[in-house]
């Protein structure tokens, strides 16, 4: 079965139904040639299951597929799986970055509440980022987080917001090209020097080409309004 994820065509034949169901939206029947045949055995799945201390085989297979796909995109497709909540606002991509449990998804939900259909969720947990012809894009992925929010779409990345909890709302723009350690810290683990250099190069590209902000956010909808008004102007 072919799947197109982040504009990369994968040939994957899941053993269990769980992965088939999860990736259904990404099935592909077009004419592009296959970039990567995702091959593995039940033994590989068993290893992932024990490495990550997982309970179920079907879930372990899914994590295994996820791992192979993200490694391939990092190594060969100038991209990265990036743990974040992402949405498009009137066609412009916004990435909300924070540690787990800090309220990325909640902040995105405030945007949806305030701006309705102008906000389209790309992926609430694990979107792919890619650089194509010097431009950076956010892509949906089958791994959409606990609320299962996202779509099989892509959108040019306009802004990266590093969310911090605060008693006051504000959005401060960082100097272009400045190193943002919190951004790099959320990228994939650096397994080999080659992969680490690819990730560094990719992150450097984003830091030099995309606007970065520190988003100090209260835990209510007012934080989305402040963020929106600074990024896109008041309605």
């Amino acid at each position: 079965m072919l799947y197109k994820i982040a504009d990369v065509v994968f040939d994957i034949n899941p053993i269990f139904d769980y992965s088939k169901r999860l990736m259904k939206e990404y099935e592909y029947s077009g004419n592009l040639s296959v970039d990567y045949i995702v091959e593995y055995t039940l033994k590989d799945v068993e290893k992932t299951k024990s490495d990550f201390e997982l309970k179920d085989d079907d879930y372990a297979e899914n994590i295994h597929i996820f791992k192979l796909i993200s490694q391939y995109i990092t190594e060969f497709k100038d991209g990265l799986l990036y743990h974040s909540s992402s949405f498009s606002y009137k066609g412009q991509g916004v990435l909300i970055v924070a540690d787990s449990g800090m309220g990325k998804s909640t902040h995105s939900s405030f945007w949806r509440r305030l701006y309705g259909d102008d906000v389209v969720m790309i992926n609430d947990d694990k979107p792919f980022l890619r650089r194509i012809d010097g431009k950076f894009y956010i892509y949906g992925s089958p791994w959409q987080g606990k609320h299962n929010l996202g779509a099989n779409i892509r959108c040019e990345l306009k802004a990266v917001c590093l969310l911090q909890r605060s008693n006051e709302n504000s959005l401060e723009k960082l100097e272009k090209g400045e190193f943002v350690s919190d951004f790099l810290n959320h990228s994939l683990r650096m397994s080999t020097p080659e992969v680490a250099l690819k990730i560094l190069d990719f992150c450097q590209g984003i830091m030099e080409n995309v606007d970065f902000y520190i988003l100090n956010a209260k835990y209510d909808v007012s934080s989305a309004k402040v963020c929106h008004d600074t990024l896109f102007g008041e309605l």
Partner: protein
Amino acid sequence: MKLQNKYVSRKIGKKYIVVPVGNDVEKRFNGIISLNETGYFIFKKLEKGVEMDELVGDFAKEYELDTPFALSEVQTFLNKLKDANIYD
């Protein structure tokens, strides 16, 4: 004293970024080291290989520090690299 070959480095913006690499990095260390000019001065020396006395001496001279202060700064820095597992 010399660094282990388990990292990659690159200049981004005004910072020098040092990233520990390896499959078990995540279990031991979560972070990425960003160095300013001073840190990078020490780091470059360690990359080449240097004795402690010489390193502290050069560092003190370059930044006009007294030796005890330079020594404590170097030691703090080395501990940071140890935590990142790129220096034993």
